[in-house]
Each structure stands twice: as C-alpha cells, then as structure tokens.
C-alpha cells in the first residue's frame, strides 16, 4: 500500500506519494519545497513548481534552489504560475480551466518528463488561491482526488500540495488532507483518509459519527467509472454504525448508477456489523484474493 499518515520529512517522498502540506510561514514552506524538490533532482526527476508562492520560495532568497537559472534554462525546473495552469487570465476565482484540461496538462507533463529522459516528475504546488472561495471548494476537492488517482497510478509524479493554514476554511483543509494519503502541518491531522492505491479506493484510520458526515460527502463525490467499485479496508482501524451506514448508503447510490460496491479486507468487526445491520444487500464483503 502507498505510504499514508503523517509525514515530517519532505525529502523522503517518492514517485507515488501525494502529500497535503499546510503552513503558517511562507519562509518555512520555502524550506519544505526546497528539500522536496532537491530530493527529486537527486533522483534524476524533472521538478515543477506551481503557484506564485511556491515559485518565489525556490527561485528567490535563502531557500532558492542551487543554480536555479541553470535548472530553468535546461528545463529541469519548470515553473507554472497559477494563472497559466488553471486560468484564462490572472483572476483565479473568475475563470479556471475545467478539470479535464488540468488533468491533460499534468498527464502531458509526466509524459514529456519521461520523453526528455527524466526518471519522473516531481510537483510542488502552492494552491491556496484555488481553495479560498466557497464556490471553489467542491472543485478543488474533486481535483485533488482526480490527481490522486493519477499519482497512485505510478507513472512517477510525487506531488506536494501546499495550503496556507488560516487562509483555507478549517473543514475544507481537513477534507483536503483526508483525500491525500500523506499530510503535514496544522489542521491536517485527520482521523481517517480516503485515497487511491493503484486504482482501488482505500479508507484508512478511524471513522466514527463525528467523521461520518465528511466521509459521506467525499464518497458521494468520488470519481467512479467502473461497474465494480472496490473499497479497501485493510488499514481501517475503527468504524462505527454511523460510518458503516454512510458506506452502505454509498453502495445504494452506486447501485442506482449501475455500479456495485465491494468491500475488501474488512475486519471481523466490520463483517459482524454488516451482517447485524443487514447491509449485505448494499455492498458485498469479499476476500482480498478474489479481487
């Protein structure tokens, strides 16, 4: 399974890692971004910096990458201001590129990195501006999940997503953290995580009544395009009746959309609760080996 949970050292992150990094001080983020990208350069990866805050951190001042001009000239470092990546103009709130175009941009960048002889692509993105207004929240959450699916696919796209603590709504930051397998910084220590492992949706940690509402929203917004959806529970340490009800209700919603939900590697307790509450009709519990 992909590395998941809290992380302290950005230089240890590898090809399939996707980390949500909150910060209070831009200088401190500059240090983190520098360490993260330097580790990529050591591995022979192309490094990409998205967002004006992240770009400033590694191109100017004490946290600038060594020989940054040379890296830029050779295309080893690519800088992508938010406007160019996501928007038709400089106003992030007014006009943003639709998610399919964003996805195509990054997939293309991974392909080009490989074509140009790099061992992968490593992305540090400071995207607070894409999560600042309530009208953006659902899109940004969905985007992180689509991106997580691509990163999990293993083509080599280690990604650090930075959000400024206090500038992003607390519940949104928690939800953003939840859909990253890894997280660090204030407001990102969440009880459970929901991310992709290869193409399998994976729920880890503890889900209780207090987290069930978040889980319900995230499951409902999960990008699903297969007739059979697997939810892996091998690292789920706890789930209560409210959490199970949310999962079962998602099974009902998937069924009405033509998909079937299967729970993989469910614990003895989950199996018991599933039977006691009569949820078998909404999501089957399967042995890991059969899927």
């Amino acid at each position, binding site marked *: 399974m992909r590395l998941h949970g809290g992380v302290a050292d950005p230089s240890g992150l590898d090809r399939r890692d996707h980390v949500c990094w909150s910060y209070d001080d831009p200088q401190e983020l500059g240090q983190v971004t520098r360490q993260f990208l330097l580790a990529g350069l050591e591995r022979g990866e192309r490094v990409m910096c998205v967002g004006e805050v992240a770009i400033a951190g590694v191109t100017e001042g004490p946290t600038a990458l060594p020989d940054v001009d040379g890296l830029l000239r050779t295309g080893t470092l690519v800088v992508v201001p938010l406007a160019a990546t996501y928007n038709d103009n400089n106003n992030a709130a007014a006009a943003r590129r639709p998610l399919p175009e964003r996805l195509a941009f990054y997939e293309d960048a991974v392909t080009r990195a490989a074509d140009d002889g790099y061992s992968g692509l490593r992305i540090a993105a400071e995207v607070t501006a894409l999560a600042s207004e309530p009208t953006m929240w659902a899109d940004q959450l969905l985007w992180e999940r689509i991106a997580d699916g691509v990163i999990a696919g293993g083509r080599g796209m280690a990604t650090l997503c930075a959000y400024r603590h206090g500038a992003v709504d607390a519940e949104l930051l928690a939800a953003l953290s939840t859909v990253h397998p890894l997280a660090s910084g204030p407001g990102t220590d969440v009880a459970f995580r929901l991310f992709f492992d290869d193409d399998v949706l994976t729920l880890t940690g*503890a889900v209780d009544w207090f987290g069930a509402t978040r889980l319900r929203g995230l499951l409902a917004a999960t990008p699903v395009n297969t007739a059979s959806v697997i939810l892996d529970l091998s690292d789920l340490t706890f789930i*209560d009746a*409210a959490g199970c*009800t949310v999962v079962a209700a998602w099974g009902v919603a998937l069924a009405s959309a033509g998909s079937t939900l299967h729970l993989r590697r469910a*614990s*003895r307790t989950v199996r018991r*609760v599933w039977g*006691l*509450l009569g949820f078998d009709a909404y999501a089957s519990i399967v042995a890991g080996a059969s899927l």
Partner: protein
Amino acid sequence: MHHDALLYADDAEFTRGVAGFIRAGLRAGELPVVAEPPRQIELLRAELGSDADSVRFLDMTQLGRNPARIIAVWQGLLDECAGRGVRLRGVGEPAWVGRRANELIECRIHEQLLNVAFGDGVSWELLCPYDRRRLPASVVAGAWHSHPCVVDDDTHHNSAAYSRGEVTDVFSAELDPVPDRADRLTYERGDVARVRAAVRTFAQASGLVDGAVDDLVLSADELATNSVRHGGGSGMITTWVRPDAVLVEFSDNGTITAPLVGRLRPGVRSYGGRGIFLVNHLCDLVQIRSGATGTRVRVTMWR
C-alpha cells in the same frame, strides 16, 4: 399477540404443556418456532416424535444470551410469517434455570417489553415456560407481572398482577451497586476517540479475548457518542471487573423515552437508531436505566 406464561414443576409438565401448545398450532396450520435451551429442545423432540419435523427449533442460550436481542428475532419471524401468509406460534424461555441474577432481571424487562412491541400488532401466540420450582420466587412472581395470562398447574389464570411494561417500569429496575474501586473517566464532544482508547486498554488488561475487546470498544464508541449527541453533551464512563465479568457503565444527563430502544432491527435505509441495537448484539448483557435524573447504560462481557 397472546402472551402466556407456562409455570411448570418438572420435565413432564414442561413437555406436556409445550407439546400440546405446539400440536394445537400444527393443527391450525401455523408455524411453530421453539426458542429453548438445548436440553429442553431434546425433551420436546422426544415428546413430539415426527411432529418435531414441522417445528423450527432455535437455541435460546445463543439468541437470548443477551435478552435484549430476542424481540428482534420474533420480529424477524413475524415478518417472515407475514410474507408466507402463515400465523406464528412461538415458545420462548429466556429465563432458563442457571442464569445469573442480573440476567434474570433483564429477562423480566424483556418479557414486559414484548407486550409493548407486539401487544397491538398482528395476531400470534407466544408461550413462555418458567421452571417454577427451581427459579427464584421473584422470577416466577415476575412472570405473573409480565404475562396477561398464566398457565399454572394446568389451569389458565388471567393475571391480576399483569402490567404491560411502561418506560418508568422497565428503566427503573434495580442495578448492582458500582464498587468503590471502579475507575471513572469523564468525556465530552471531541473525547470519543479517547474513550475508545481507554476502553481498549481496560478490556485488554481485563483479559478479554481480541474479538470481545473490539466488540466492547465499538459499544463504548456508540454509547459515548449517544451521550454527546443526546445526553447533554457529556458523560462519565465507569469501569470495573468481577471474577466472572468485565463491566463498563456510561452515565449522562439525558433521558431515554423509547422503551424499545435498541430492541428492534433498524431499517436499513434509516440514519441513526443503530447504536444501542448494535451494542445489544455485541455485548453479553446490556442494562439501561433512565429517568428524569439521567441515564445509565451498563454493559457486561462475561469472561
């Protein structure tokens, strides 16, 4: 429903009374279901002969290990009978000889709540045998209290002591005192994960096996969550062990007003209402006491 008690003095009275009741059902085309301890099932099979093939036998020591689980079983059978267009005729002996005193109290409450659950519903028969010689006198007196009709010494009596089982009645039954040496921990919103961790540590230290530890932790989560949501926002957990049992009690300032809480299987599409139902199925004994001064839910795991 017709809810009768059968007070029997010995095996012969038991088998004669129950077999007669079952055969009357078979003649009427009803579905007889017998929930009894294994020994009584063997007695009945011998007495019924080939008629036993038309009877469904359930092990009461399994399904009624916690008496609060039994009503859901009868409800499931009633649903099945409704689907098949047959009438249900049940025999249930939750208060078998050898049960612990606090289990027998919960059996009495269960018997009272049967009247609440099914008293105004579809027509069916339920006969509840009691060993009048070997059970404590208070348990036999309780049968007169919880059954409108009692068969004693082969004679039908309308019980003058019958009371249907109202909230004040069932939620104010006696509880063993909490020992002074019990450990206490208060909790409020944001503390439920801490309650789970504390109960896990306590359950493991008390020698429960892994499955029972997980069951107790899930039960603790559900009950502490109920305190936070419905019990005034906070509560206290008290834990102690006895030679035969591990006990955890949750107390808060809420008041439970639904006497059947946790006893009927929740609808699969409804949100909520599942916590105490699950707790009833995960724990060996669940004792709910509630009134104007607050609620106590005590759960027991035998060891």
